[in-house]
């Protein structure tokens, strides 16, 4: 039955065609928000590499979900998140070009929080993962991140345009390359340390 979904929070009323006050059932998007918010933020963060921006974009994803009421909400939010991240990346490139036009100075990373020992450690690890991810092809990276976000093979296939059978192959390659790239950079770092001391 095609009732306005807005009424769906009152299932009793839904039957009758008009809302009867009853115990409101949690909106499905709210449930989705509760269960996938952090996965969406992580997914976005691995694309935009800015925590605040990732959270803003995640918020945007769910606001849009409220409007669109997607049929497959989980897959939908990650698809929209990927699109937003892509737009964001394009905008960032434009900004960077603009900045280089304005000044030749390298853009400085702003550090908002005081950096503690733990944070340095975290940042170092993250930097390695980031550069390892950057060495993957776009497709391998996308599939890997979607898998890590919790999407199933068929969902990943749909979003990446791969055949379901190809998802395993792509994931196998992506995992291997990520680890290889990461180990390479660790090795280089050790060598550099050794050379310094």
């Amino acid at each position, binding site marked *: 039955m095609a009732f306005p979904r807005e009424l769906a929070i009152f299932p009793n009323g839904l039957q009758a065609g008009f809302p009867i006050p009853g115990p409101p059932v949690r909106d499905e998007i709210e449930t989705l928000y509760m269960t996938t918010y952090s996965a969406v933020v992580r997914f976005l*963060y*691995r694309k935009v590499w800015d925590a605040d921006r990732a959270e803003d974009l995640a918020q945007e994803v769910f606001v849009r979900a409220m409007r669109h009421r997607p049929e497959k909400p989980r897959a939908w939010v990650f698809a929209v998140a990927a699109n937003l991240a892509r737009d964001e990346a394009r905008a960032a490139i434009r900004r960077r070009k603009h900045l280089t036009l304005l000044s030749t100075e390298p853009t400085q990373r702003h550090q908002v929080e005081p950096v503690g020992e733990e*944070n340095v450690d*975290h940042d170092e690890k*993250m930097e390695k993962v980031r550069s390892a991810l950057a060495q993957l092809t776009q497709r391998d990276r996308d599939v890997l*991140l979607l898998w890590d976000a919790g999407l199933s*093979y068929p969902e990943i296939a749909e979003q990446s345009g791969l055949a379901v059978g190809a998802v395993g192959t792509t994931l196998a390659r992506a995992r291997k390359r990520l680890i290889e790239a990461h180990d390479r950079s660790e090795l280089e770092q050790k060598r550099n340390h050794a050379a310094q001391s």
Partner: protein
Amino acid sequence: MPLNPDALRHIPEEELHAYLDQALSRSQCVEIEHHLSECTACRVERDGIAALRDRTTALLVAAAPRRMRPRPFTEVSATHLERQHRRSTRIRTAAWAASIVAALGLGWAMSRATAPVVPAPERQAAGPATPAPTPPRMASAPPRRTTTAQSTPEPKPASPPTLHLAGLPVTPGSDSSRPTAPARPATSELASMGGAGTAGEPVLDGMWRTVSWDNAQSEADNWLPRVEGVPVVQVKVRRSQQGGRPLTLVTQQLASGEMISTVEGPSPEVAVFLSRQRGQSASAELQDMQVGSRQADSTAGRPASPGAPPRTLAIFGSAPSDSLKAFMLRVK
């Protein structure tokens, strides 16, 4: 399946990934597990892939924000509602501002056609407010033949009044018959696709001239339809394609700053004009206008032009159609 495990094909790497990712069907899993139980090489391979998988997951865990500040869901729904509101407001504004063509088309058999010289005023004097109402007619209704009167003037407005709507085909009276003057009240719907671009500003097509009030008055036979008691901002006149009385467009500004415009002219031209007003469809009731008498007055003494097309009077602007209907009643 061969019985000798060595002869079995080894499980491809990607299949082991899919197996560990639980992306295989139950039967595929059974098959793989059966093979694993008998093939050491594949078991080693599987353990290697499991370790690779775990390391990948562990690495990716590091690639996450140090902390998240999830906002309450109410913020999401508030933003959603706000946008929804803005969207609907935008649509409403468009539907509104973009000239709700409350086309109160009041067609009337233009009385300029009537009685060559004297009779019209006399008739009006006899009973300006007494014409019998025509039953409501829908704009989509087929055009009805204008009731005509004999050229011999009648002492009373005995003939039934006529109503023409914008866009209705016109059956002009034959030479011997003329439409009677007093157009009479009726209520009808006129649906019109259109709407001005911005806040009630009419979209002008053709050669409109801005004229002074006095000039417009004289060009329009001393009858410029307008809403009484509302300051007139602009008067524009366009020559009618059929000659004779021009199209007049009187724009007035309400106290609220919104503009409303009254357009009057031959029905087909007014209909075209209204359709140019970009925007939404609007409908309005045709009102009991009692303009027949004015028409008659204004054209008294003019040579008859037999078979003159009906004319339409419409109001449109950035006001709700209800207001426009109310304004229609105040048209002088």
